[in-house]
Each structure stands twice: as structure tokens, then as C-alpha cells.
């Protein structure tokens, strides 16, 4: 039993290492991803295809999926993993206990594999709250909606509620007068005919 377990580990890691070496020219991360794929074989498919034609020892080796579970830790140790949770556009989260670099909550759709699309082949990491892109977005919003841009002055340090004035909008609501090019087509045609 122990020997079989050791063999399962050895075969898994040997295929992982060899495949990574074969495609190393494609880049370290991609080579590791492909090695990972090559080392994880669809046991169930072959078992289903061969049916009851397998002897007991073969069944036992088939029941050794443990090496796969250790691969994230290997990825982390090898430095191939980005260590950041990937953005997969999913709703629920889980923790990956084995990977040292992936300690936070990961948002994944399912282990079955529902992947981010497509427009970008590389799956981008989830942006953490303190990450640079989030700060950039926040800065852009502050720039656009900063009171200095709208009220032409710095915001007041103290606001006295009793002295606040309500100033009505002078613009007419779009329900009574639509924006240019938003009016109904028959009105537009009539306007063009008049002009």
C-alpha cells in the first residue's frame, strides 16, 4: 500500500518535471501549467472504458489521487505560482489549504472548471483592496467628482445645516423635453422638415 502510494507520487512528479523541462522555452509559468496538466490524468475515463477488466492492484493504484493535491504546494515552492488568487468571476470562495502562497480566499466557480473568458487568454489575478489598479480607479473617481471641480472651490470644513439652501435645477426634465437626438423619430422628422 505504501509502496503504491510512493509510486503514484513518483510517477506524478516525474511527468510534471519532464513536461516542464520539455516546454520550458514557452516560459516558466506556462511550462509549469502544462506540466501540471500532463501529470494529472483522467483516471475515471480509463476505468469507465475498461470496466471490470482491471485487476485489483490496478484499481488500487487508480485510487491514489493524493499526488494531485500536493501539486499546489509544489508550485508555490517552485515559485511558479503567482501566489495571487485568480479572477474567475465567481460567487463563492474556498480556501486552498496546501498552497502556502494562496492563503487568502479564492473566488472560484467550481473545480469542474468554469473559466474567465476569453477575451484575455491569461487569467488575471483578483485585485486586492490595496492593490494598485483599485487605487487608480478610486483616484479617477475622486478627480471626476471632486467638489473642487463641481463647485469651483474647496469643500467647506464645517456645514451648518440650518443655512443650507435648496437651489432648483434650471434644466428641464428629459420627460418633457428630451435630450438632443433622444427625441422620438417622428418629432425629429417634423423638425427637419420645418428647417
Amino acid at each position, binding site marked *: 500500500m505504501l509502496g503504491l502510494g510512493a509510486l503514484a507520487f513518483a510517477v506524478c512528479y516525474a511527468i510534471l518535471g519532464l513536461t516542464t523541462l520539455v516546454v520550458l522555452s514557452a516560459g516558466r509559468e506556462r511550462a509549469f501549467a502544462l506540466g501540471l496538466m500532463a501529470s494529472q490524468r483522467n483516471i475515471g*475515463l480509463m*476505468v469507465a*472504458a475498461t470496466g471490470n477488466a482491471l485487476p485489483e492492484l490496478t484499481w488500487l*493504484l487508480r485510487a491514489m489521487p493524493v499526488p494531485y493535491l500536493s501539486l499546489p504546494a509544489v508550485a508555490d515552492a517552485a515559485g511558479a505560482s503567482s501566489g495571487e488568487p485568480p479572477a474567475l468571476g465567481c460567487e463563492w470562495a474556498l480556501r486552498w489549504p496546501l498552497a502556502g502562497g494562496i492563503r487568502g480566499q479564492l473566488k*472560484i466557480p467550481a473545480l*469542474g472548471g468554469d473559466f474567465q473568458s476569453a477575451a484575455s*487568454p491569461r487569467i488575471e489575478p483578483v485585485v486586492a483592496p490595496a492593490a494598485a489598479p483599485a487605487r487608480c480607479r478610486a483616484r479617477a473617481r475622486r478627480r471626476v467628482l471632486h467638489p473642487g471641480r463641481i463647485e469651483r472651490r474647496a469643500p467647506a470644513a464645517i456645514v451648518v445645516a440650518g443655512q443650507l439652501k435648496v437651489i432648483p435645477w434650471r434644466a428641464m426634465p428629459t420627460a418633457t423635453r428630451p435630450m438632443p437626438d433622444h427625441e422620438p423619430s417622428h418629432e425629429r422628422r417634423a423638425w427637419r422638415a420645418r428647417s
Partner: protein
Amino acid sequence: MPAAIFLLLCIAFLRVDTTALRIHLRRPGLIVVVTAWTMLGIPALVGVAGFVAGLLTRSPDLFLALMLQAVASPMMAAPAFAALMGLDATLVLVTLVASSALTPFTAPLFTYVFIGPALTLPPLRLGMKLVLILGGSALVAIAIRRLVGIAAITHHKDRIDGVNVLLVFVFVGAVMEHVAARILAHRYSCSALVRSRSPSATPS
């Protein structure tokens, strides 16, 4: 169990991102190399290594298990694993689909060359079964995608996940059928192993 595998494959194919497939297939060089290595290189390497080591005569059952592992297509969850580690999941997905398409042709060839009569199932029948399982599940998945639409599949993602988990449970239960008996037969060595690896026994 074959039904569980078929349904699991259906769900996996249901979620294949066809747009990503098309994008990667425009530059297929790397995919062709990796697919050839995965489906031809590795089985040949394992077969030759087993043959040289004399596994065919010393332990034919073990050699059969190793060869079946080598000729099998990659696991359908491999892209999800890659994504969990922050690796390029789409590349893995495309290579996985290409390898799965080759499996019905390469698996019978290698089982015929290296295993021979050790596998009671004839290679041609093995190939036909693989075509039926892989092709059938892919066709069912395509039909569901056409009938239901991607939006509905995305909407019912959690329910599909739940069905997936139940199917995996059925599959793992069937695969682990003989393991419990083995552990009970070697309960002393197994418990010693567990005790030796438990945190309290591990020196800090």
C-alpha cells in the same frame, strides 16, 4: 460508474470556453507540441521504462495500471487547478481538449503495443468505448449549450456545481471500493503511519 464519468465529462464540456479555444487555436504551435508530448511522448516513455524494468513479466498488473495512467487524457479539472494556482488556465484547457480528442486513437495503440493480452479488453473495443464516452459527452454538452444557452448555464452555475460534487462522490466511492478492505487488512501499519505523520508526533 461509467454513467457518473459520462455526466462529469458532460458538465466539463458544458463549461468549455469556446471563444478561448478559438483564440488559442490561431497559434497552435505550443499546443501541438504539448499535445504530442502528452499523448505520444509520455506513454512511449512509460511503456519503454516499464519494459526495460521488466514490469511486464514481474508485475503485469502494476504495469497495466501505469500504462493506463500514461495513455489517459489529462484530468478535466486540470484547468481549474491551474487557475487556483494563478497559472494560465486557458492554455491548459485548450491542450486538454486537444489531448482528449486524441485519446481514443492513441490509447488503443499503446495498450496494444505495450500491454498486449494483459488487458482482457481488445484495443479496438477500448477505442470505441473511449469514442463513445468522450464524443458522446461532448455532443450532449454541445446540444445542451444550444438548447439552454450560455446565459442559463452561467445562471445555474451553483446548481451545476452541486450536481458535479454529487457525481464526484459517486465516482470516488466506486474507485475507493477496494481501498477500505486493504486498510483494514493492514490496519496496524496504516495506523502507525497515520500516527507518525500526525502533528503531535512531528517534532517542532
